[in-house]
C-alpha cells in the first residue's frame, strides 16, 4: 500500500474513489430528499441550491436519485467482482498449481472468451438467464471468471517453483495448504489491480446493460437505468443525463486510475 501512494495515478484514483464511496455510504443512511418522493410543483427544475442536480419529470430530486443509483451500481459491481474473483481464484489456483491437460484446455477456453467483447457475452447470458438485477450480477460474475483465473494461474505458476514453497513442502504441508496459505497471500498485490479493473468493467457493463433495458429493471435503482430514463428528457432536462453520466465517469475513472497506479494495464 505504501509504495502505491507514491504513484500519481493511484493517489488520484484513491481520491476520486474515496469521495464516491463516502457519498455512497452516506447515501445508504441519508439523502437530501427521498429519491422516490414525487412533487407535482417541482417538475424538471434546473439545478439550484435546493436541488443540486435539479429534478426529473416527476419532480424527484436527481441528486438523491444519483446517490441511490451509484450505490446500487456499486453493489452490483462488487457482487459481480466477488463472484468472478472467488471462482477465478479457485480455478486459476488449481490449474496454475497442478498444470496438465485440464490447465491447457481451460486456458484455451478462457482465451477464446476473453477475445469477445464482454457486452456481447453479457447480452447472450441475459438472453438465457432473463433480465433483472440478480441475473446481471450472475452474468457479469461469470464473465469475469476467465480474466481472474488467468492472472491467478500465471502468478501461482510463477510462485510454485520458489524456495519458500519447496521449504513448505519439505515441512510436510499439504498441496492445498501450500496453495491457499502459502502462495495466495503473495498474489494479493497483483490481484488488487485486477479487482480495480474488474470494478471499472462492472460499472461500465451495468450502466450499458441497464441503459439498454436488459439490466436492472424498475423499480430497482441504478445509474444505467437513470440514464435510460434521462434520455427521454434530454431536451427539457439535459442536466439529468449529464449529472448521471458524470457519476458513471467518476466511478470508472477512479477505478481505472487505481488499477493503473497499482501496476495494471
Amino acid at each position, binding site marked *: 500500500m505504501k509504495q502505491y501512494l507514491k504513484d500519481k495515478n493511484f493517489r488520484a484514483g484513491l481520491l476520486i474513489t474515496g469521495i464516491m464511496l463516502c457519498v455512497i455510504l452516506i447515501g445508504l443512511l441519508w439523502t437530501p430528499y427521498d429519491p422516490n418522493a414525487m412533487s407535482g410543483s417541482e417538475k424538471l427544475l434546473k439545478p439550484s441550491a435546493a436541488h443540486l442536480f435539479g429534478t426529473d419529470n416527476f419532480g424527484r430530486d436527481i441528486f438523491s436519485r444519483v446517490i441511490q443509483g451509484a450505490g446500487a451500481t456499486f453493489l452490483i459491481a462488487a457482487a459481480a467482482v466477488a463472484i468472478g474473483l472467488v471462482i477465478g481464484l479457485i480455478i486459476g489456483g488449481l490449474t496454475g498449481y497442478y498444470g496438465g491437460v485440464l490447465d491447457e484446455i481451460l486456458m484455451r477456453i478462457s482465451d477464446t472468451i476473453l477475445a469477445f467483447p464482454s457486452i456481447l457475452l453479457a447480452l447472450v447470458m441475459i438472453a438465457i438467464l432473463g433480465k433483472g438485477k440478480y441475473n446481471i450480477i450472475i452474468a457479469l460474475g461469470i464473465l469475469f471468471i476467465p480474466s481472474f483465473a488467468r492472472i491467478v494461474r500465471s502468478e501461482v505458476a510463477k510462485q510454485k517453483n520458489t524456495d519458500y514453497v519447496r521449504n513448505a513442502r519439505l515441512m510436510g504441508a499439504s498441496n492445498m495448504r501450500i496453495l491457499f496459505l502459502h502462495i495466495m497471500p503473495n498474489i494479493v498485490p497483483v490481484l488488487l489491480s485486477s479487482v480495480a479493473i474488474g470494478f471499472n468493467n462492472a460499472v461500465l457493463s451495468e450502466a450499458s446493460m441497464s441503459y439498454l433495458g436488459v439490466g436492472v429493471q424498475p423499480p430497482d435503482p441504478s445509474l444505467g437505468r437513470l*440514464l435510460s430514463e434521462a*434520455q427521454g428528457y*434530454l431536451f427539457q432536462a439535459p442536466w439529468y443525463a449529464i449529472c448521471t453520466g458524470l457519476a458513471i465517469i467518476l466511478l470508472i475513472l477512479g477505478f481505472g486510475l487505481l488499477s493503473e497506479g497499482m501496476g495494471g494495464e
Partner: protein
Amino acid sequence: MTYVLKKTGVLIISLILISLLAFLAFQIIPGDPTTKILGTDYTPERAEALREQLGLNDPLPARYLSWLKGLLQGDPGISYSYFMPVKEVMSGKIQVTAALSLLSWVLVMLFSIPLGILLARFEGGHFERAGIVLNQVFMAVPPFFLGMLFTYLFGLVLHWFMPGGYIPFSQSVPGALGYMFFPALAIAIPKAAKTAKLLRSSILNEMNKDYVRTAYSRGNSRWAVLRDHVLRNAMLPVITYLAMSLADTVAGSIIVEQVFALPGLGRLLLSAIGNRDFPVAQCIVVIIAFVVVFMNYLADIITQYVDPRVRLS
C-alpha cells in the same frame, strides 16, 4: 507458411465451436416457441403441426446440422416474432452495423495515431501532461453517454442532425454516413484514447533502447529518430491492438445504435432478446462472433508478417 496454416486450422475449429456453443446456448432456454408464434390462435394441434414444420421435433444433433447448413447457405431459420425468414428480418441491418463499426474504427485510427505520437514527442512537457489527463478522462466515458451528449449538443441545440432520424443507404449514401458520423464518433473517442495511450507507452518504451541512443548520438533530432527508427517498431503492438479493436467497435455499435435509434443489428438483437426471438438473436451472435474471431486471426497473421521475431518464440 506453416504458421498461417496452423492458425487457419485453429480458426476453423473456433468457428465450428462458436456455432455449436451459440446453438446450444439458445437451446437450453426453457419455453415453447410455438405458444409465442401462435398467440391467441394456439391449439395443441396447431402447435404440433408448427413444431413439425419448424423441425423442433427432430433430435438435437440433426437440428444443429440443419441450422448450420442453413446458416452457410444464407438461410438461418425462421424468426419467432415476425414469423418470416431471419434473412429477411435482418436485411439492411447488417450494412448499418458494418458501416457504423467500420467508420468508428477508421476514426479510432485517425485520432489515436497522431495523438499517441504527439504525446510521446512532447514527453515531459505541459502539453503531454494535459493530454494524458484528458486522455484518461476520455477513456472512462461510456460511448452511449457520449452519444447522449452529442444528441443533446449537436442534435437538439445546434440542429446539425435530427435525433432519431436516419436515411437508408439505398436512398443516399452520404446522407446515411452523415447520420452515422456522431454515433461513430461516440464509439471511437474512448477507444482512440486507449489506443493513443498504448502507442505513447510503446514509443517511449522503444525510445529507451540502445539503437535509439545510437541514433541520437549521431546528432539526429527527436523527430527524426521518432520518424525513421522508432515508429516502425512501436507500431507493432498497436497494429495488433487495432486489428482486434474492430471487435470492440462492433460491440460499441450494439449499444450506440440504441442512443441514435439507428436500425442496425444491435437494436434488432435487443428486441430479439426482449421478445425471446431466439433464431434472430442466435444468428446475430454468431455473425458478430465470427467477425471477432476472424479479426483476431488477421491480427495474428499481420503481427507475424510484420514481425518475424514472433515466429521464433
